[in-house]
Each structure stands twice: as C-alpha cells, then as structure tokens.
C-alpha cells in the first residue's frame, strides 16, 4: 500500500487510543476531587454523619439527663461543657450530637422518600401519556402553587407530627420537581431513535427504561438530591424551631435554637451552636451539590472578562 496510507493508519489509531482512555465516570470523579471546596465539604459532612452515628459513644453526658438544675444551668462554654448548658443544666454538646442524628436522618430520609415518590409519579405519568399524563401534571401544577412551608404548616396542623409523619410531610412537599424531571426524561426517551430500535428488537419497556433512562438521569438527580437534603434539613429545623416539628425533650438542632431564643442576651450559646452546626451542614451540602454539578456537566473553556 502507498506509504501515505500507512502513516494515516498510525495517526488515526493513536488518536483513538488516547480518546478512549478514560470513562466518563472516571473523568467526573477526577474533576470532583480537583474541586477543593467540594471535597472538603464532603469530608465535613462525613464527619458530621459519623459523629451523629457514633453519638452514644461520643457524647460525654446523657442528653436528657437533668441533675441539680440550680447548680448546672446556664453555664457558658467550657472544657467540661464545650457548648455550655441550657436552662435545665443539660450538656448542650451531647444534645447537639443527638440532635445531629435527628436532623440529619430526617433530612436524608425525607429526600429519599421524596425522590422515590417523585420518580414513580413522573415515570407513570410519562409512560402512559395522554389524559393520564395531563391530569397528573395538572395535579403537580396545583401542588407547586402552594408555598412549600405553608403546605408543611397545613399538613402539620392536620396531622399529629410524630417523626415518621414529619418525614412524610417533608417528602410530600418536595416530590414535584423530581416528578417533572423524570417525566421529561421518559418523554424524551420515547423520541429517541435508539429506543425505537430497541423496541423493534422486542426489548420490554422496563428494560429500556433501566438501560437508557437511569444513566442519563442519574447526574441531575444526584445534584438535586444533595440540594434537596439541605432543603429538608432546613425545613425540619424551621418547623422544630416553631414548635411544630420535633418536640422537646428530643433534641433537634431546630428546637435547640428555639430553646435559647428568649435567653439571647444572657446565654447566647444555647442558640448559637446548634444554628452554627445547621449553617455548616447546609453550606457543605450546597458546595457538594455545586461540585457534583460541575463535575458531571462541565462547561467549556472559561473566560476572564474585564
């Protein structure tokens, strides 16, 4: 063969080799790790989750124990009580650790529930299409018209708010965006050629969904999921702060902040620390979500402007 053609072949295969080196997954992981803020946030979250899980081991005192109230109440932060004590003399550090359990678990479970409900709803709506889809989406429109917090207040007012019910209520206000998204994905899937081909080959519907929907939908769902956990934690905190969520004596960061509300001038630490922990947690989730978004959906060359 002509000398030129030989060289063409070698140039081509070299290029192909280099391009196929990394899978999209590996690229994403690497990008995420390069994002220092996101990485550190992930570590912070991991520490918090670990602390929450190990609360019984880590807490120096019993979060509910009330001893000699007069002697131990309203003590400022010290080595014995890193976060001080509250009006009943309870150690706030221990309470914060147990509060982490409540706040984090409620938030995460609520997000998982919301994502499940939303995905199922959206999948059914998108799959059936037609009138079913129309009606289901109208319901979503109405649902979204209610401000989320008001909806929560209404539901809390109607039902007794035990922890499982609270998780359900939180989830019930958060599922619509996921539903819309999943429905959109299913609808667009139908349009795609390779889905036509797959059906022509006789693949059953659920197989198609699993194979083609999941990989594409995974990244956005992860990103919104991280943000949703933050939202759920914040919502639970707000409700508990108002006295409508987790009730004392069970510690939740929200009701702990409320407990210190009237003693701000004299005992600032009661409200300060649980709120600070909440803020740190929410910031960390936001940064992780940002990091995930950048890692999974990279924008092209960035520009410096003025």
């Amino acid at each position, binding site marked *: 063969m002509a*000398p*030129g*053609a030989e*060289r*063409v072949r070698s*140039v*081509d295969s070299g290029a192909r080799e280099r391009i196929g080196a990394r899978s999209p997954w590996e690229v994403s992981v690497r990008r995420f790790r390069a994002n220092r803020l996101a990485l550190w946030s992930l570590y912070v979250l991991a520490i918090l989750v670990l602390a929450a899980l190990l609360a019984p081991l880590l807490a120096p005192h019993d979060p509910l124990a009330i001893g000699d109230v007069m002697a131990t109440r309203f003590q400022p932060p010290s080595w014995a009580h890193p976060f001080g004590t509250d009006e009943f003399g309870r150690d706030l550090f221990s309470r914060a650790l147990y509060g982490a359990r409540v706040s984090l678990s409620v938030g995460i479970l609520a997000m998982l529930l919301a994502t499940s409900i939303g995905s199922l709803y959206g999948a059914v709506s998108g799959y059936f299409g037609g009138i079913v889809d129309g009606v289901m989406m109208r319901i979503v429109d109405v649902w979204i018209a209610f401000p989320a917090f008001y909806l929560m207040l209404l539901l809390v007012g109607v039902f007794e708010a035990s922890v499982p019910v609270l998780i359900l209520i939180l989830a019930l206000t958060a599922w619509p965006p996921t539903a819309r998204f999943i429905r959109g994905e299913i609808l667009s899937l139908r349009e795609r050629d390779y889905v036509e081909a797959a059906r022509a080959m006789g693949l059953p519907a659920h197989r198609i969904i699993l194979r083609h929907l999941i990989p594409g939908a995974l990244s956005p769902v992860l990103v919104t999921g991280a943000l949703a956990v933050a939202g759920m934690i914040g919502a639970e905190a707000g409700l508990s702060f108002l006295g409508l969520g987790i009730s004392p004596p069970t510690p939740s960061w929200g009701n702990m902040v409320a407990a210190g509300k009237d003693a701000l001038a004299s005992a600032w630490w009661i409200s300060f620390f649980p709120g600070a922990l909440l803020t740190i947690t929410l910031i960390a989730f936001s940064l992780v979500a940002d990091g995930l978004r950048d890692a999974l959906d990279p924008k092209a*060359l960035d*520009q410096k402007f003025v």
Partner: protein
Amino acid sequence: MLLSVSGLRTRFEVDEGELWPVNGVSFAVAAGETLGLVGESGSGKSMVALSIMDLVPSPGRVVAGEVAFEGLDLLSLGGAAKRRMRGGGIGMVFQDPAVSLNPVYRIGDQIADVVRLHRGLGKAEARRETVHLLGDLGIQEPEKRARAYPFELSGGMRQRAQIAVAVAGRPKLLIADEPTTALDATVQAEICDLLKYIQGEFGMSILLISHDLAMVTDVADRIMVMYAGRIVEIGHWTAISREPRHPYTKGLMGAIPHLGAGSGRPLESIPGTVPDLADLPTGCSFHPRCPEAGDDCQAALPRLEDVGDRLCACFRVGRSK
C-alpha cells in the same frame, strides 16, 4: 501594506497539553485587496482573525509575532487605542449572525451605537447614517428594517445587517470569518457580491476566511491556504486555483465539483483526518496524509519559500524548473 503579520503564534493551554492553532503565520494584506484564507475546520484560521483583533478567548494567548496595521503594532497597543482600532480600523464579521447580533436590541440601534462610537456623530445623525448604510448594503425599506430585531430578519438580511454593524465605523480592513457558511446557497452568492461591492465602494481591504475554496476563489484577489496552524501556500487566485502546487491545496481543489470539462472525473477526498492540534506529526504536519511525502518530510519542517509565482511550504515544490 495595510496589514502585515509576521511570525504570529497563539497558544492554548489545556488539560491535554498545549495547542498551537496559530503556529508561525506570516502574510500581508495590501490596501484595497481581498485576501482569502482557506482551510478545513481545525486549521486555526478563525484563530488568526481573533489573534489579530486580540480577542483570543482564554485559556488562549498570543505569545509571539508582530501585527502591523497602518504602521502600528497592534499587539502592543494600550486599551483605548486598541478599542479605537477595533471597529474603527478593523471590522469583523462573524459566521452566524443569529448569534453574533444582540438578540434583544434592534439592528438600527446596534449599528447606530457603532457609528456614534467611532465617528462621533450625535443621535439623530447616527440614525440617518444607519438608514443610509442599510440601504447602501442592499436592504429594502431601510427605515422600517432598522427598527427590526435580529430574529425578525431572514438569514441573508441578518448577515447584511451584521456586515453593516461591522463597517459602520468605516474600518480600512474587514475580516470576514466564514460569512456565508450559515447561509443558504442562493443567499451565499448575494453576500459574496456584497463583499465585492464593499471592497470597491468603500475602498476596504478584506481578509476573507472560509473553508469553501470555491467561494473564496470567486471573491479574493490572492489566496492563502492554511493547515494545522501554518500557511502552506499563498498566491494569486488564478495561480492557486488553476495550478495548485502544494499537495494539500491540490487535494482541496480535487474535492471541488467542476461543471463542464472534466466533470466525469470522480471527486477525490484527502485520506485521513485533520490532526489533533495537541498532537501534531513531526516535520511537515501534512505528511501522514500526503501522497507525495518522502522521508525528508518527517524529519524537518518545510518553510514558506518563493517558488516563482507564489509562496509554498513543501519540499516537493522547489524553485521553478
């Protein structure tokens, strides 16, 4: 010479390494002439234009060379002088007017802004100039059209509008980057005629960039061919189109359908693909795809040499026999 470029090099630093879309480019444009710049996608031709205007997007930078326009070295100009040059000395037309015109402003306003910026006219005068210019460029009912938004115009009219914006500052040189690529075939011919008209009527020089060799041959006085960041051949359009001598140019010409004599000949395409700018072959960048390549082509880089009626960078093309 109106514009004189020598040794221009632009570098991009990316994850994979360094890219050199402009890798030692030198040419000149005389007053009143149209110079065509031809190359495939990825040859770096658009980057030549952006480098001249100092609009290279990061992570790219012009790292070497001289760009002399009317005696001034553009690359070392300060802020205000550079802004005067842009639009006032050199105008630029981009490929797709649908994205190069601001979608939320009327085209008349966009043109008038340029007129006021570079010719110092007041609002009312600028308005009159705008209408006059639009009419001059072949737009019917210019007063009415001036109040239109870009999305309300057809592709051809949009491109005329963009050209109006580009020449509103009365620049001496117009750089047209793929001005016809986004247009229908019939409209392409109209825009080509418009460019020729501008050159004659306004005495402008034009640097016409395109991958469409046939279109450039129609409009340009001289043509230069670019491959992988370097110029491989420059010459008068008759010389280049009738008797291409660089193997790459020959390949490009062979891929053009010809009507009439020789139309029975099959279209030839150049085997292989344009090289990745981050991973160029050693020596002559074209040698892996070149039917005339020899061992010396891999070893050393051929420079642009005067071979009689043109400049050519190829070891197989020596001085005229």
